[in-house]
């Protein structure tokens, strides 16, 4: 049941990917690794969760080039675009992104295992659709399982955040504000 190796060949020397605003090198040994394992095991960005490893639960959702992707189904050497993980959602001053704040405020978090993936899927939605209906929110989260909350307060949180961001000058895009020279691991 090993899912360590993918189809891609060795990482070209000097290949880097940008993660939460910082360029990170890919090593030859990383070739074929899934983005999920690479983030968790190489970068120690353990906020990205593994719930199924077959692309069915959405716990591993991260943004690549602003779009939600399943890190467990993505080979790290194939990543084309900036990666944003849950660790890159906070604002540069360390305060919570409005989406994160809304999850906290409305009680959308129980065990929290789905939360990172939910926040990123919601972020991708709001970036393309700042005023989604509840049905559109549910549609956007259809790929993300939550066993605890029954989804209702998660939908509430996304609605709240959307309203807050509209009232406060538009969507905030995370992960692109940090200086490249700053380390982002750990």
């Amino acid at each position, binding site marked *: *049941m*090993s899912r360590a190796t993918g189809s891609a060949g060795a990482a070209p020397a000097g290949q880097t990917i940008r993660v939460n605003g910082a360029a990170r090198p890919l090593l030859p040994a990383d070739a074929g690794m899934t983005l999920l394992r690479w983030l968790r095991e190489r970068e120690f960005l353990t*906020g990205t969760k593994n719930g199924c490893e077959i692309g069915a*639960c959405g716990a591993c959702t991260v943004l690549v080039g602003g779009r939600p992707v399943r890190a467990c189904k993505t080979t790290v050497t194939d990543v084309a675009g900036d990666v944003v993980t849950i660790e890159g959602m906070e604002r540069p001053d360390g305060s919570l992104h409005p989406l994160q704040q809304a999850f906290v405020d409305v009680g959308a978090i129980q065990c929290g*295992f789905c939360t990172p993936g939910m926040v990123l899927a919601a972020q991708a939605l709001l970036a393309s659709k700042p005023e989604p209906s509840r049905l559109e929110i549910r549609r956007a989260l259809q790929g993300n*399982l939550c066993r605890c909350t029954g989804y209702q307060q998660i939908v509430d949180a996304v609605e709240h955040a959307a309203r807050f961001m509209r009232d406060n000058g538009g969507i905030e895009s995370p992960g692109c504000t940090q200086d490249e020279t700053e380390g982002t691991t750990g």
Partner: protein
Amino acid sequence: MSTTIREKAFRNDAVAKVTGRAVFADDVSYAGMLHMAPVYADYVAARDVRVDVSAALDVPGCRRVLTAADVPGATHYGQIERDYPILITDTIRTWGDVVALTLGDTRDAAIEAAARVTVTATEETPILTVEEALDPYARVIPTWSDSNVVVHHRLRRGDPDAAFAECELIVEEEFRTPVVEQAYLEPESAVCVPRTDGVIEVYGSMQHPFSTRRFVASLLGESLANIEVHGVAVGGGFGGKDDTAAAVCARAALGALITGRPVKLTYAREWSIRESYKRHPYILKYKVGVTSEGRVAAVKAEMFADSGAYLSVTPWVTWRSTAQCFGPYAVDNVCADVYGVATNNGFNGAMRGFGAPQVNFAVESIMDIIAGRLKIHPLGLRRINMVKQGSTTVTGQVLDDHTVSIEEVMNRVVHEVGFRKKYEECSFGTPSETDSDALYGIGLSISYRGSSLGAEGMDFCSAIVNGQFDGSLILETGIHENGQGSESVMTLVLAEQLGCSLKRIRYRRSSTSTIPDSGTTVATRGTILGGSAVVVAAREFRQLLSTSLATRLRCKPEEVRFHEDRIWGTTFDASLTWAEAMKELYLQRITPFAFGTYQAPDVSWDDTTGQGNAYFTYVYSCQAAEVQVSRKSGNVKLLNVVAAHDVGRAINRAMVMGQMYGGITQGAGMTLMEEVHRDGGRIRELNYNRYRIPRALDVPDMHGIIVENHDPKSLTGAKGIGEPALELIAPAIANAVHNATGIRCNSIPIKIDPEELP
């Protein structure tokens, strides 16, 4: 108390979880850590099992392969009967049995090695249904029993046979409920670390640190004091992270003990579903006699729960089914027999609801069937038979020491959803003018649920309040956080008791070595027991402070008050900040520390008659569901759910709501889509692509109503909500489907054949 608990969502762990900083077991790593993988054999039932590990040891990076021969303690353990193999010796009783464990430098190496372990055995014909297992000539699966009937609970009250003779209507129905996977989003995981003093430390994704400690100590042959189990963030449990999760911890601990290195064992979803216990499927047979006025006069019930290969908590699950065998109705003549039956299916154990959802599905379906036959309104029939203040339950318990609010919760739901009008609008029985594809129906159900363990087990819990020199406070309790928010509830209770700000309190997640064993976090007992323990400790703490500070506050000790984040005497100018107060105690050489234990009120039970005071209090619930059934496809779509629960008191409203929505959604999953199938004992749905649980579009926006009749036996007034939320949605949906289509589904998950639709 002057400070009331605020209404906004409060969770001490929310920021950590929303930023990805929360540490779950698989997020823990150590330098030099080895990785473990389990080895399964493709047998469902076999004896003379022989394991050959030589090829596995050749895999590069494989360090070691462990089998039963490496176990210093007992290979088998269990909460009631020690029959669950942490590692099998020579007999395989189910497909999830683990025959060996590999240890590798990497997880890949361990997995690769596991694939190279070869197993030979003499295969036996597996026994896969309760019917086969009950055959008198069937092979007996458990070693400790002389029959496959591993438990039999009886309830005898009045004289049902005589009463049936007087009845106007007798209804006989059989119901079936599915095997359900808890489907916690985080699979089992454990990291175990050998400490230099010989203690093995365990960081695991498990529900019950103390139960886990017993599993680990037993496998390792170590004393309880030599095992320290730490809680980490747990990605859901729903009852499902006890035995198997504890076995995962014990296996990693075995690796750590033998190699002297930290060991991580993180389950793949496929291993988790293959091996972990599930919800018991039930076969329920009811015979119910009703008088012409609609009074249920007699009930005979026979239930069979598939226990699977190991006993786990089957006797407790089936006990609850016995004590609550006819829902929240007062019936004078009842005879119930509830059996747990061993098979070679994977074992079944605790899952949120614990023996109640199955029974409620049957009982609340029957009530609607009776209403239909007698042409009585389903609400009226329920009103006639439901328990009222002072009623006697089927176990002979008189309900007179708390508010019996079943009628109140039902009225709230009926009003909120507009039940009477919508009931008239249901498609079944209403000639339709259009040939629209959609059939509409509404259905309702009610239940009561005994709080906490009842006569199932020992019920007590401890809490510690530890005041610091600067006025901050550390709180610990023996209740474990599984994601349900118990730590936050405990913190809110302490803040209320001490009239202090939440910021002052730091909840410390206790380890098994720092607080007395407080039992397991099950049975919706976290809030009622843990909360009450915090109240006891807080009272002690206030007492200590009052006595020590009275002189300084120029008043009598009993006049000292705690509010607005200060400590007060009788006059407005006599008050102390918490820092001043703590400093004063230290100057007097008094440690500001209090320990409190709460012991649940007594319950009683007679095994031969099934009579007694089964639980010290009950949660009353009502849920209504509206559905739309497609004529073309037979698909059932949930349109709306309204739920009311008397939780005693809501300490954290947003979280009570979250428990309701989540519980209803899990219950709807069991009703409409979830079922584990086995082909010859091998599970078909090993991951979420095949085991479908509700997604965001599968459930509607729901309406939760919190009813609060403070419970006099709970020191906070609160009773809990975790399980009640799940246990009665199935019959509400089944009744709604019937009212839409005229089809009565006696087995869930509901499948409607469009051919049968009007």
